[in-house]
């Protein structure tokens, strides 16, 4: 059976990345891609990476030999292949984006033409798994069961199939991920709308399928090598049964409710299926399992690394992506060493002596009009993983890790208008609904009947709910037994203090008194059967001893970014990983604390010690007191660790870099603004509002509406909004209060038509040493995270730049900053106002680092340790331009109005370089999903002045781009008045040609729709156009400034072949700079 001869080792390999983070395709692909690159380089393979996601670790200097920051499209991939004389390609490490790009390359015969070999799973096998019909046929060949289904190529076909199938039924799109376009259809009347969604955005195939709601949903991660050795590394069980996407489900590993017969049956089918399909590398197989029999269905196979494989890697310590890459290079599993034991090989199946719980994080409340229910389509933006020894321990950790303000599985965490409704139609809060139902005495059987959650999970929650009650009961006292019981049930000190109505810190004090501390256990892949050298740890209250003692080395602890959420994701992981690498280079032992399974920072070989645990005062202190590091870095992981700075400082922790007292001065608006006044630095007028009553008076003092309302201490403009008139103000105040009760609400004058500029910087003992100024293309009012950034600035007065630099320097010295910081400014004419100042690494650190070639995170880390770093590089002297563009996931969020505001809405970003602004901008927009218009442009320019502001661009569209212009009512009149020919179209379907119909007919492939100014929700008609645009994947621009920049770029670059150049060609200097100085 053993394969005769192995394929020749590749010499030059192209790795396809997954592009910007978006719902369904997030940080996990930075992890898998980085591991693949590492595996290739170990083997001396010349590695080329195509990925525009500038915030990732895989696009860092020192990773791939050549980096291409461009859209992952067949055209660009082909050009890179030619340029780099690549002989092979990896398709399975960049999610669906890379897979689909690979399929396209194959179908266009480009791989053959260019003589490129696909490493690992062949494209034919990928097609068998992605084409849902082929898949069903292939599995039939070996008698493996799939759900009864019909694959349909058109809505008409689907209607016929649905008629035969009966209701409820399931719709699923092919060649997609994150359940895109899928959904339950419970009655015929819902079918047309469901089909429109399913087929939208050029989907070529939709499966009409028998509905398996309520069956157990189980996954296996399978690895197979070229020698046909095959193993399953891990299985996982969804707490939320079939009908709720695995990415939306709470998931445990290993499975908890399967007996050995079921476990082995599914395992055996997995191996048979994977062999039959001819997978070479890693894949994921999903099952529906009937809870009352051994009946099963295979839901799908993902023939690539996936979110689940990243989770499985972190859950078991088995580096799936690394091993898959080695297999792609021709190694067999027994030839690959087990990096954790160092004594055994990769051919084994991990035995866990703990369990993990994954929970998703949603940000639906950030989106106006979002449908709150969750289902077969992914809406979550991040996830956490908790490790422990019992279900109560892990579920409580996991729910706290979500950072949604809950103290665990608290039955009182939320109020439910209709509890049964909550249980029946799941929302992100259902798990709390289950806890609540238990508290209110609903039986486990009844809860199971409504939710189909396996009774085992519900039973396991009972002791937690009871303990919440025990703590709150009058007469309850903090005795050692209660304390121990609570800790073993996964209660935080805070939850215990709160339950017993004690001073914060009481539970901790009691723990110290009774020497009740968590133990730290190793993830060793073999349940202690072999001695392991692993540094991968978790804490538990169910152990009597820790596995390994702290070392005597000089060490530094770095706090990660925690769960990805809108406003904080891979960019902060990049900062943390760079900090850790810099520390290692400086000879420190590094301890990483983080709990996000999608990250590279939680890859156990990035640091000397990985503690996969909560980032809370309690857990950080427990680790700190045990490990006794020289200091702690809180400024790399974004707002989560930053918010802990002061409390850790007070608890006696040594925080490296800027003094926490000063961090606080910058965070506390009152104090900060007083500082600005003292320094004579201007800022938008603002006041504190403590009671809604005085609000209007204050607005008058500020000079009237519009005003910006926001609570302090929040990242990403959470709960921040603009009020244009009194009622709106009242509504917002009501909402804002609930967000952070212990901080007063800030109301500031909202500056209209102002430019926004940011400075990212590194300072040392109050001296500004590195700085980079970026300008936003959009006016202020579009959150910095959603704005299109340009570095170096192209349209800012030198005077303004000087002023900004000076202000940054003044702040650095006033706050005695050592380390990273970021300041945001508003600029009107020559006036500059400071919006905010964060004494930590910012979202744009990776962007400015990669555009300037100076690693700001590494530099900041050196300074925090008092080590001299590089000499400043003048970031204005660059002879290239970098543009960072946001990526939105509106298409996945049913009902949401795709509009930009002061609340961040983007889920990811890309960054591209070019010789000039236009080149970089077009590359960046393209990489964020923009397609060049060839058919027609729809203009729907809201406010009257905007209509005229856009006149020149409209003329360019007509005279230079020669594209037909369609315009809605008012806009059409304005254009006509300016003598620009256009076709007037109705906003609603009905009378005459309507915008909708043209969009659906594909007559329009670019839409500029500037919402009526200051209309928070957008006028309904505008809404319909915007919504249809995102659903059909038609490029949509809602910001006038960006739209103007785009049209100008299209005009200047028309007919020009935009050059495709490696990052190393733009920044040759940094090539030869040693990474570890």
């Amino acid at each position: 059976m053993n394969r005769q001869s192995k394929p020749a080792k590749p010499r030059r390999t192209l790795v396809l990345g997954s592009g910007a983070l978006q719902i369904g395709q997030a940080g996990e692909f930075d992890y898998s891609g980085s591991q693949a690159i590492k595996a290739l380089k170990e083997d001396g393979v010349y590695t080329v990476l195509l990925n525009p996601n500038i915030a990732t670790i895989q696009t860092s200097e020192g990773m791939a030999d050549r980096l291409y920051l461009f859209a992952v499209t067949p055209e660009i991939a082909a050009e890179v292949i030619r340029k780099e004389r690549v002989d092979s390609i990896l398709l399975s490490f960049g999610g669906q984006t890379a897979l689909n790009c690979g399929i396209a390359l194959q179908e266009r015969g480009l791989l053959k033409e260019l003589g490129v070999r696909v490493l690992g799973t062949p494209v034919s096998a990928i097609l068998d798994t992605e084409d849902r019909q082929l898949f069903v046929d292939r599995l039939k060949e070996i008698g493996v069961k799939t759900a009864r289904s019909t694959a349909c190529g058109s809505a008409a076909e689907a209607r016929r199939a649905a008629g035969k199938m009966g209701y409820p039924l399931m719709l699923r799109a092919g060649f997609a991920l994150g359940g895109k376009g899928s959904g339950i259809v419970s009655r015929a009347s819902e079918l047309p709308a469901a089909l429109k969604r399913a087929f939208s955005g050029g989907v070529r195939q939709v499966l009409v399928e028998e509905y398996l709601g309520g069956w157990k949903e189980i996954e296996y991660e399978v690895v197979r090598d070229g020698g046909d050795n095959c193993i399953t590394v891990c299985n996982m069980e969804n707490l939320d049964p079939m009908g709720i996407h695995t990415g939306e489900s709470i998931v445990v590993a290993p499975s908890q409710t399967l007996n050995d017969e079921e476990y082995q049956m599914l395992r055996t089918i997995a191996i048979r299926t994977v062999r039959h399909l001819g997978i070479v590398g890693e894949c994921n197989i999903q099952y529906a399992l009937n809870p009352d029999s051994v009946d099963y269905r295979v839901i799908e196979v993902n023939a690539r690394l996936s979110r689940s494989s990243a989770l499985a890697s972190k859950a078991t310590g088995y580096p799936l992506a690394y091993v898959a890459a080695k297999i792609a290079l021709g190694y067999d599993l027994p030839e690959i060493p087990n990096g954790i034991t160092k004594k055994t090989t990769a051919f084994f199946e991990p035995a866990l002596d703990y369990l993990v719980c994954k929970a998703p994080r949603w940000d639906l409340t950030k989106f106006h009009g979002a449908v709150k229910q969750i289902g077969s389509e992914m809406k979550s933006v991040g996830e956490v993983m908790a490790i422990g020894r019992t279900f109560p321990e892990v579920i409580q950790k996991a729910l706290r890790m979500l950072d949604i303000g809950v103290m665990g599985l608290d039955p009182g965490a939320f109020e439910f208008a209709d509890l049964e409704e909550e249980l029946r139609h799941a929302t992100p809060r259902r798990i709390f609904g289950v806890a609540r139902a238990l508290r209110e005495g609903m039986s486990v059987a009844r809860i199971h009947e409504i939710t189909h959650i396996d009774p085992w999970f519900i039973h396991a929650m009972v002791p937690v709910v009871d303990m919440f009650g025990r703590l709150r009961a009058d007469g309850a006292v903090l005795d050692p037994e209660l304390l121990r019981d609570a800790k073993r049930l996964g209660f935080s000190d805070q939850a215990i203090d709160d339950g017993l109505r004690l001073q914060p810190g009481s539970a901790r004090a009691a723990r110290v008194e009774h020497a009740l501390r968590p133990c730290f256990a190793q993830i060793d892949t073999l349940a202690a059967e072999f001695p392991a050298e692993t540094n991968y740890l978790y804490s538990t209250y169910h152990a009597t001893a820790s596995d390994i003692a702290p070392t005597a080395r000089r060490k530094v602890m770095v706090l990660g970014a925690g769960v990805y959420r809108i406003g904080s994701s891979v960019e902060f992981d990049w900062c943390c990983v760079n900090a850790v690498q810099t520390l290692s280079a400086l000879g420190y032992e590094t301890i990483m604390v983080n709990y996000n399974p999608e990250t590279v920072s939680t890859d156990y070989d990035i640091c000397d010690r990985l503690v996969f645990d909560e980032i809370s005062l309690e857990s950080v202190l427990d680790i700190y007191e045990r490990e006794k590091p020289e200091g702690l870095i809180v400024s790399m992981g974004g707002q989560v660790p930053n918010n802990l700075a002061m409390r850790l400082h007070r608890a006696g922790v040594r925080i490296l870099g800027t003094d926490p007292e000063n961090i606080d001065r910058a965070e506390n608006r009152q104090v900060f603004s007083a500082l600005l006044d003292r320094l004579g630095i201007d800022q938008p007028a603002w006041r504190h509002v403590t009671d809604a009553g005085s609000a209007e008076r204050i607005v008058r003092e500020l000079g009237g509406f519009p005003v910006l309302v926001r609570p302090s201490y929040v990242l990403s403009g959470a709960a921040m909004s603009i009020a244009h008139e009194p009622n709106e103000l009242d509504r917002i105040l009501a909402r804002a209060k609930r967000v952070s009760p212990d901080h007063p609400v800030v109301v500031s004058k909202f500056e209209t038509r102002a430019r926004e500029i940011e400075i990212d910087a590194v300072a040392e003992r109050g001296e500004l040493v590195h700085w980079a100024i970026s300008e936003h293309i959009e006016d202020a009012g579009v959150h910095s995270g959603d704005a299109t950034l340009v570095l170096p600035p192209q349209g800012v007065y030198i005077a303004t730049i000087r002023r900004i630099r000076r202000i940054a320097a003044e702040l650095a010295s006033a706050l005695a900053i050592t380390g990273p910081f970021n300041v945001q400014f508003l600029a009107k004419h020559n006036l500059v106002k400071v919006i905010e100042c964060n004494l930590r690494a910012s979202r744009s650190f990776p962007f400015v680092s990669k555009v300037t070639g100076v690693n700001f995170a590494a530099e900041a880390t050196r300074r925090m340790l008092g080590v001299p770093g590089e000499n400043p590089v003048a970031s204005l002297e660059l002879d290239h331009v970098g543009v960072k563009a946001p990526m939105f996931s509106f298409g996945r969020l049913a009902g949401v109005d795709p509009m930009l505001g002061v609340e961040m809405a983007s889920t990811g970003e890309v960054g591209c370089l070019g010789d000039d602004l236009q080149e970089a901008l077009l590359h960046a927009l393209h990489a964020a999903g923009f397609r060049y218009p060839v058919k027609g442009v729809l203009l729907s320019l809201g406010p009257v002045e905007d209509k005229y502001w856009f006149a020149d661009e409209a003329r360019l569209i007509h005279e230079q781009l020669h594209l037909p212009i369609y315009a809605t009512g008012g806009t059409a009149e304005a254009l006509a008045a300016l003598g620009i020919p256009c076709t007037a179209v109705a906003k609603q379907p009905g009378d005459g040609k309507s915008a909708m119909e043209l969009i659906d007919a594909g007559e329009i492939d670019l839409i500029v729709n500037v919402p009526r100014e200051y209309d928070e929700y957008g006028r309904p008609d505008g809404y319909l156009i915007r919504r249809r645009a995102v659903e059909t994947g038609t490029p949509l621009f809602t910001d006038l400034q960006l739209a103007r920049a785009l049209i100008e770029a299209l005009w200047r670059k028309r007919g020009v072949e935009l050059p495709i150049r490696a990052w190393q060609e733009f920044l040759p200097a940094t090539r030869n700079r040693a990474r570890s100085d």
Partner: protein
Amino acid sequence: MPNKQRWRLELEDGTVSLGFGFGAGRAVAGEVVFNTAMSGYVESLTDPSYRGQILVLTYPLAGNYGVPAPRARGSIDGPYESPRIQVQGLVVQHVAGEPSHHLSTRSLGDWFLSESVPAVTGIDTRTLTRRLREHGTMRGWLSPDSMPLDEVRRDADERDMREGIFREVALPDVVRYPGGSLDVLVIDAGAKDNIVRSLCARGASVTRAPWHADLAPLAEKADGIVIGNGPGDPKDLGPLVAQLREIMGRFRRPLFGICLGNQILCLAAGGDTGKLPYGHRGVNQPVRDLLTGRCYITSQNHGYAVRDDSLPTGWRPWFVNVNDGSNEGIRSDHDPYFSVQFHPEASPGPQDTAYLFDDFLRLAASMKA
């Protein structure tokens, strides 16, 4: 639910772990061994190879899916692997209060009570396992914490791990299981029922004879012979080794050894066996077929192993353990005699090597014709 009675596990080296009892109340003693499987406790606990041993589960959650209804007398249906719980006692980190599975009729605790076997929960089985790995398997005493130590040492129930243990686990007399045209003799020194089920399911009729029966006449009638698994030290089965040697000399029947059977075949061939520091007990043991180079994940449960260097000429290692290089199977160069150290019948564990039963029966059929 664990009754709140404090229980204690004491090891030879003095290590004491405290937990709560959830099974029978009597004290027991025995060799303490650990198993790293994450599912399949019903199968493991009824596996005769565990006879006389105190079993520690490294997976922290036990009893999640409960225990199915007891099977009828004489039945050999799964998931049970023998008529009773075989372990002396059970040690787990956390036992499920409320099991959940459509086949479950009772909790793990109910089962242990009904068969009056002690079980303890609330013990840090990882730390315990690390101890066993570092010191090798040790004797241990499982008892209520209230019971004085000398009393425990005196009264704790302990099995005679010499020949006696094999008499306990083998069925007293010959039993026949009709299945098909081929006749297979299964030599029972504690064989798991699934070995019989696996043969019958493949169209063989099985004659299951205790190791102390007069085997030669049965062997003569059989188309093939399987030597099953069992507890203890193969060297305590001298009589069986002798009988087997005679059978191998007299008739050339396809002969397939499993687990203990691997060691017995080795001894009968003139080789030697030895004790592993802490054995292989789990469902994730990787082995390599030295003929094909192919690797398989196997289910294992053994404390003794064949010593490769002791194999006489005409015999060679067949499978090897990928982790520690220990022997996982042997075969004869000239005769249809071969055996494996792992469990192709699985139960619990992966079924990747079940093909060995097909190969064996194919061979038996071809030699019969």
